[in-house]
């Protein structure tokens, strides 16, 4: 599987990343090499009758015992202390593209 420059730009856009000049080509090469490497998964014989899994074997069935509502841990400081901008209990961010904030 070989990626084109357009593929890389499309993916970077989906991933909310901007690529500097030169970075795009390097990522294209690296990702193409990695995809060629992972293409060997097609030889594993996994197509017929094998269900995909995102869990591991050996799991306990009781892992869902989470119905009791847990009180959150007491925080050592307000979430605002870890946020770049915080006011009146809200995270402050610029408006989405094309939206004019009220009152401005």
């Amino acid at each position: 599987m070989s990626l084109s420059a357009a593929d890389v730009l499309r993916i970077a856009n989906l991933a909310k990343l901007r690529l500097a000049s030169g970075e795009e080509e390097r990522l294209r090469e690296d990702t193409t090499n990695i995809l060629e490497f992972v293409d060997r998964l097609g030889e594993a014989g996994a197509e017929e009758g094998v269900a995909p899994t995102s869990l591991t074997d050996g799991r306990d069935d009781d892992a869902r015992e989470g119905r009791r509502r847990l009180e959150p841990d007491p925080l050592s400081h307000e979430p605002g202390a870890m946020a770049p901008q915080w006011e009146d209990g809200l995270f402050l961010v610029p408006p989405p593209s094309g939206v004019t904030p009220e009152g401005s």
Partner: protein
Amino acid sequence: MKSRGGRPWLAARDQIRASEAGPESLNAFLALAEDGDMPDSVPDGPLSGVPVAVKDNLVTAGLPTTCASRLLEGYQSPFEATAVRRLRAAGAVVIGKTNMDEFGMGSSNEHSAFGPALNPVDRNRVPGGSSGGSAAAVAAGYVPIALGSDTGGSVRQPAAFCGVVGVKPTYGRVSRYGLVAFASSLDQVGALGRTVYDAARLLQAVSGHDPRDATSSTRPVPDLRAAASRGVGGLVVGIPDEYLRDGLDPAVRRCVDEGVEALHDAGAEIRQVSLPHTRFAVPCYQVLAAAEASSNLARFDGVRYGRRSGGDGDLGDLYEVTRTEGFGREVKRRIVLGTFVLSAGYQDRYYSQAQRVRALISADFGRAFNDGVHALFTPTTPTPAFRLGERLGNPVQMYLSDVYTVHANLSGIPAMSVPIGTVDGLPVGGQIMAPWWGEETLVSIGATLEARLGEGAG
């Protein structure tokens, strides 16, 4: 050790600070505890007064948590990881946060935004990754035990490179609450120690159910310390042929053969086994780990945590500039790969296919263990620690550093690396893998290998 006002851990911290400021610095720590971060006294417990280092992707109250990323530089968590809380309850003193590959993505520590940690055995070589700082700190004698995390070998591979013991428990044995997620279905908190016993007592202290992590198990935690003196008589140890083929350094192979002989001499039955899907594990892991990472790291957008850049234009600008400036090269590479394999038109070919192969790899282990094998013994890594810069330009070659370790993460089984010899003065690790919840078996076999092959053996 000089006691300062009855707080000997201050002297331990001072020693580390002096060593790390000197010409032999290992860059093992990203933050050291200040006097005010450390307690006046500690509770009586199995780790009373023991200084412990914590990997910088476990959130800590008092010390910053950066995951070795510019994106989280200076980030201070408002709560503490369950594993760290349990350490403190057991009497341990957190002495500092250790260097790592950014967000756990790497096998050499060279992907830290704050420079690589160095291998104390040879400072021109990598300590392994991603828990390289924790392994270096233990190997250098800074601390007897350290916490790491293991998504594809990130505790065991650096333990092997630095000549210490590293254990990844069964998925669900230790709470992941407060572990900054890289790949949630693969991540586990792990333990590093100078000896098998030390690693076992650290793992014992942090294990057990936590209602704050729905994937943590309610199974009782066995007495791992007692398992260290149990021996290997009556155990059947499987040797998978697929781990001993091309790519394995012949000198490492000789160490593994000596390990097999030591286990046989100690009373274990040795049996050849086959795990036919072994060679698909690294590509399977790369797809799944990248996919999960691209999803988990979406939360780092400049709104809630750490760094914010840009945003003069609009919200999209803020997201993109923050992430572009905050993430390093390897993290971007994995996010791009993960986003691609989850994107329309490619999800079945890559992501779903990798999930199917994961089932096959896991079934290989199930068959071996159901056939009466109590544990498997393999090399931890195909070579000893490589030189700084040697593999940075070739991501696929770097990923193959984990060629023997990712299987345990994909299948969720516990695994341990224990020193089994040296090659040209560089440590070599042997890996033990046990069935799900079989940590006691790891400790028994690890302690036997340590007694017969470790420093001072014979």
